[in-house]
């Protein structure tokens, strides 16, 4: 009887030890996605201005590039929920009304700068004849 008591106690101890581990594992496996922090309670004026300007500049140029979208998405979470919602709402209006047009690619929106070199005759570089190309 004593033996079985010890045996049972041992089993209970094992169960007692295993239970927290099991609970821990289940808790980890069943953890729900945590809601992200609501964001700051006050806006950084510079950041708010930058984000507002981003929309303003896009409206002026009538183009919304992938880069604009990235910058917008990066800045929004740093603003207060109120500012975030206001600016994001503004963005939906500009897009849907086509006040700003989605650019197909960053290159399409901002073409590479054209060459501003002044054409010079062959062998003449900046008014000086290059001896290597003087014919």
């Amino acid at each position, binding site marked *: 009887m004593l033996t079985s008591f010890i045996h049972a106690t041992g089993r209970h101890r094992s169960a007692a030890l295993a239970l927290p581990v099991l609970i821990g594992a289940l808790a980890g496996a069943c953890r729900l996605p945590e809601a992200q922090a*609501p964001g700051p309670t006050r806006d950084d004026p510079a950041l708010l201005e930058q984000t507002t300007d981003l929309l303003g500049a896009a409206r002026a140029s009538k183009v919304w590039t992938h880069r604009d979208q990235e910058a917008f998405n990066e800045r929004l979470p740093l603003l207060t929920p109120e500012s975030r919602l206001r600016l*994001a709402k503004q963005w939906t209006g500009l897009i849907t009304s086509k006040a700003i047009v989605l650019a197909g690619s960053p290159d399409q929106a901002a073409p590479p700068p054209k060459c501003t070199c002044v054409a010079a005759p062959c062998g003449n570089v900046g008014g000086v004849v290059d001896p290597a190309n003087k014919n």
Partner: protein
Amino acid sequence: MPARHWSLRVSLAVLVVAGTATMISKDVAATGRTIDSMVRIRKVMMNGIAVSFTASGALASARSDASGAGLEEIGCWTVDGQSINCLAADASGSQAACIVADSVTVNGVKVSLGYVMRLAALNGDSFIRFAGVADDPNDPLTSYSCTSLQVENRSIYSPKQ
């Protein structure tokens, strides 16, 4: 951008009725079923202002069909886990975007609308459909609130090429 962001199912019958299919995937063509997976935007206009819209399309088709002449794009994402943004652009140049908060407070209790959760079901071959409504139908630059979001992951939509 962090892994953004979403399944409700729409019966095949609804899709067949709605679709005068212009793009038929190889898989679907073999079965004779037509599934329109191009990006489509339908706006309800009033006095030159879109008072509401619906946008739909498969992410894979939007990517495959994007050309230099016209941009097709569709997708939804979240930047804060508390709201979602949706955006669509079809081949004709029409565009639509909306935003919606993921939760509402009812009698002091915050209730999730499940938008962010639906984003978790979204993958590169998903078909999505969302709808938006103008917040102020009299304002030409009115903002738009999303009123629904459906995410479908079905074999009838061909994967990205």
